[in-house]
């Protein structure tokens, strides 16, 4: 993990970025693009994020050792490597591929992703990723349209999260490119994840997940992870 000294100035960049040119919020999404607004859930669920070429994730030796430690510990019921077991954020793309619904709110200037009442993340159109971001659990995101495909570019992640429920590791150099494609009926979507992380993987690789829309009547229940923690948290 890159040791990064947090200064009092750091959150200025993270929290209060002055964006004089930020477009006025609130315009409806243009009709020519599919509208991803709504609640979604991964279907089918898979605990593993697997390369679409059918090969194992191209882990470097050190990262492979970490992954195997995660698998071995989990087999013994030990999930202390998994920060979500103490209610810390899942990171990306895991927050979307767990067995929980999330919602997308699509506007012309930004997309909002909210999994129940977990940590939300935002992807802004017409912006560039920061050059030297203060790492965050869910990173930084910019969005663009490629025809009817929505492409979200993400970086600036902390390395304390994992990529999937099995514990596939990543470093702060993770660069994630997601491509969202709406199904013809508007009730399904597929997301392709291009994963680049030179500290963890020998080369870039791509995974894919499918999602289905939740019924329009679906309302997100309040989820209080910390309340469950008192009985479920592993001892550390």
């Amino acid at each position, binding site marked *: 993990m890159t040791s990064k000294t*947090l200064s009092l100035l750091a959150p200025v960049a993270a929290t209060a970025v002055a964006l004089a040119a930020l477009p006025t919020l609130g315009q409806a999404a243009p009709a020519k693009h599919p509208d991803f607004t709504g609640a979604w859930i991964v279907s089918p669920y898979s605990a593993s994020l697997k390369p679409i070429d059918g090969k194992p994730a191209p882990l470097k030796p050190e990262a492979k050792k970490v992954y195997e430690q995660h698998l071995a510990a989990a087999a013994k019921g030990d999930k202390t490597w998994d920060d979500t077991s103490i209610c810390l954020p899942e990171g990306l793309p895991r927050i979307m591929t767990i067995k929980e619904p999330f919602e997308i709110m699509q506007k012309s200037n930004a997309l909002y992703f909210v999994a129940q009442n977990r940590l939300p993340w935002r992807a802004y159109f017409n912006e560039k990723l920061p050059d030297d971001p203060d790492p965050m659990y869910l990173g930084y995101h910019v969005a663009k349209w490629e025809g009817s495909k929505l492409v979200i570019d993400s970086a600036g992640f902390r390395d304390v999260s994992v990529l999937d429920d099995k514990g596939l590791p990543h470093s702060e150099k993770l660069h994630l490119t997601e491509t969202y494609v709406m199904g013809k009926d508007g009730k399904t979507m597929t997301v392709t994840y291009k994963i680049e992380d030179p500290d963890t993987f020998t080369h870039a690789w791509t995974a894919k997940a499918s999602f289905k829309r939740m019924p329009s009547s679906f309302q997100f229940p309040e989820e209080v992870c910390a*309340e469950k923690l008192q009985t479920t948290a592993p001892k550390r």
Partner: protein
Amino acid sequence: MKTTSILRNGSALLAVSASAAALAFAGLAHAQNSQSPSQAPSAAQTQNRPKTLDNSGDPTLALTGPLRGSTVAPAGSAPPNPDPKDFQGVWWLKGYEYMLGPAPGVEPPLKPAYMEILKRRIRAKNRGVPETDTSTQCYPHGMPRLMESPYPIEIVQTPGRVTILHEVAHEVRRFYLNQQQPKDVKLSFLGHSVAHWEGDTLVVDTVGIDGRSFIDDEGSSHSDKEHIVERFHKIDGGRQLQVDTTVEDPVTLEHPYSYSRFFQWRPDVRPSEYICEENNRNAPVNGVTVAQ
């Protein structure tokens, strides 16, 4: 554990936890208030003030001072959206009241038994051993307390919905437009909210609020029967969002009461990650929260 640095209203704080941040902030607010003679009430005002905890003369009941003032968006920031029914974007509460009564420094009209509980909580706080509340356990703050948080909020409007994304503890309020409250609302800390427009005012009705949370930071009680109506509308050319809140609770309150709060348009701010669970050094022990 990692240290999180937070810049809030122009004051840099090294926050050891969410709760400590709030406590530190309140302390700062108190200091600011006590150093601002212009804020102090006049003798006439003092004489005419109703008997409240704030002027009880009992030092063990001293309230935590409010924060006054606010930071506006710097020159050149995006102007407010001219549509009076478009609240989208980032807003920041002006000031910060530790107690949410009908007027600053005035407690909610609690029934006697609940007033005694509030006094007990204030005394515990002033002894440095505040009673456990929801926020110190990383549970949602409850309502209306969440709306009185010195962190930015972001409003997003989508068909049939208005959503508030709070930076604090990444809490989310979803308002379902033009719907009736369900007959059997499952209790939750932020309740179930339905909303409708009355002209340019968004009227939000919230019920089903878990009685374990407090009305405010001082510890005023509400029950599961609490009912909150909030009226959101833009003022000041869209640079402020006024929220008129009415709280009623037949269990803990003598009668409903109302107050108004104001949020500043802050297009220069992007909400950041706020993760209570990461560094919850104020986790309660045996029902008591002690800063560690």
